[in-house]
């Protein structure tokens, strides 16, 4: 199994570990609920070194990114980030990713751990057509510092003022002297930062960020409940090669007018008449919808499936879920039930996010 540079630290803390996309990662250092709540109340520090980092360089780098992803990378200026999708010829989603323009000829991609090898193979296969250089960055790792106190904690470690850095912007900086890429972004619905840095600098930065006791380390368990409250999709759950991204509510990431890209025609066809829609569910009684549980209409017929379900620590552990439903049952206010081990758990379709986002949309 692969290990991030913080693996020994996690193990020394007695974290419960899990195989996540081939990486030995911490689920929780103690228990998930308090780690979740600490991120919302103060700050959480996440080892996300399992995520894949890839550079695309060359005079035709933009053309390459445009041809392989669904969003319009031509809109990016230097240091601007964009959520996008990597699609196959059938219009299926290979992965969701963040594309950042580092320069006119240089793009930086962050992809999911479980898909990183397949993504890289796919990019390398198409690279010769564009004469671009595609390289994974095995010498680097990623940390995320998330929560209302993230900026105050990170500021003393970097040289440039963080306050003017807008949401979904990235810039090179030094973090405790190490060359780094610092962005205002994350996967929790909180304000916060993601930091790409050389592997050998990770532990020093990690320990320093925890020193004051304001931030606590947070494992993948709370990373999942935080992203679920924010209704961010997770590849393998809400997204895969079979579900149309239009059904997942990701039409805003697909820019068919930008020009041709892999799977464009197939995607446009799937936009016409979506068979289902991703919706948020909130339990109306005690009980928890879980991944894979069936959703039933009021007559008890199976009509959909839960893609992610868990208690929401921010909402007193009420059950929340994302589920694919027929479009006529996906409107907020609709009553459905989730088959919880044979019991019909009453749920209501609700607007997402489940917990209001606190990401900073505008620069101060």
């Amino acid at each position: 199994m692969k290990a991030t540079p913080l693996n020994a630290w996690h193990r020394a803390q007695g974290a419960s570990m899990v195989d996540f996309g081939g990486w030995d990662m911490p689920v929780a250092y103690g228990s998930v609920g308090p780690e979740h709540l600490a991120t919302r109340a103060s700050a959480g520090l996440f080892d996300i070194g399992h995520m894949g980092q890839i550079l695309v360089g060359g005079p035709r780098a933009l053309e390459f990114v445009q041809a392989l992803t669904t969003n319009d990378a031509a809109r990016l200026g230097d240091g601007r980030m964009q959520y996008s999708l990597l699609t196959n010829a059938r219009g299926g989603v290979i992965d969701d990713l963040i594309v950042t323009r580092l320069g006119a000829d240089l793009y930086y991609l962050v992809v999911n751990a479980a898909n990183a090898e397949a993504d890289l193979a796919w990019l390398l296969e198409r690279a010769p057509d564009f004469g671009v250089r595609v390289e994974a960055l095995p010498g680097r790792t990623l940390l995320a510092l998330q929560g209302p106190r993230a900026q105050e904690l990170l500021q003393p470690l970097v040289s440039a003022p963080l306050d003017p850095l807008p949401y979904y912007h990235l810039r090179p900086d030094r973090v405790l002297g190490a060359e780094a890429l610092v962005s205002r972004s994350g996967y929790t619905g909180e304000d916060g930062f993601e930091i790409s840095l050389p592997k050998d600098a990770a532990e020093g930065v990690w320990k320093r960020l925890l020193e004051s006791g304001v931030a606590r380390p947070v494992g993948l368990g709370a990373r999942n409940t935080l992203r679920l409250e924010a209704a961010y999709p997770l590849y393998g759950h809400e997204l895969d090669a079979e579900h149309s991204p239009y059904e997942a509510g990701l039409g805003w990431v697909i820019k068919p007018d930008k020009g041709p890209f892999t799977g464009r025609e197939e995607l446009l066809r799937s936009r016409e008449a979506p068979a289902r829609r991703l919706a948020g569910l909130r339990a109306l009684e005690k009980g928890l919808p879980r991944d894979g549980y069936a959703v039933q209409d009021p007559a008890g017929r199976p009509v959909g499936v839960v893609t992610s379900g868990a208690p929401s620590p921010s909402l007193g552990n009420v059950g929340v879920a994302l589920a694919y439903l027929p479009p006529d049952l996906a409107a907020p206010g609709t009553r459905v039930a989730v088959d919880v081990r044979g019991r019909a758990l009453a749920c209501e379709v609700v607007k997402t996010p489940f917990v209001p986002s606190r990401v900073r949309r505008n620069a101060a």
Partner: protein
Amino acid sequence: MSSPQDRLYTRTHEWIRIEGGRASVGLTAFAVEAIKDIVFIELPAPGRALEAGKPFGVVESVKAVFDLNAPLAGVVAETNKAVESDFSALASDPYGAGWLLRIEGVAGGREGLLDAAAYDRFCAEERH
């Protein structure tokens, strides 16, 4: 950690304390510690017949669902209402105030169950 001697244990981490034809059932300290943050407990209604080795309810953490399995056959006489609404007794006193079920008509052989010493050895092996 040594488990109380006055009861028997399953390999799925339930305990049963038998007194004549009646018994109390709960979850072991080892299990409670492994599950960590319990957010939901689902117990059967009184009157429900339990089958030895079969699930009768669940304990859920933020992360996962854990089945509760019946150590022996019997009929549910009472569930612990206090624990169903406040899980703290399960963590602080799993062998006392944190009991889950009282059952009656306890039946079946006990050969599948472990005594405290055997259960402690079983847990020590599971830790590795």
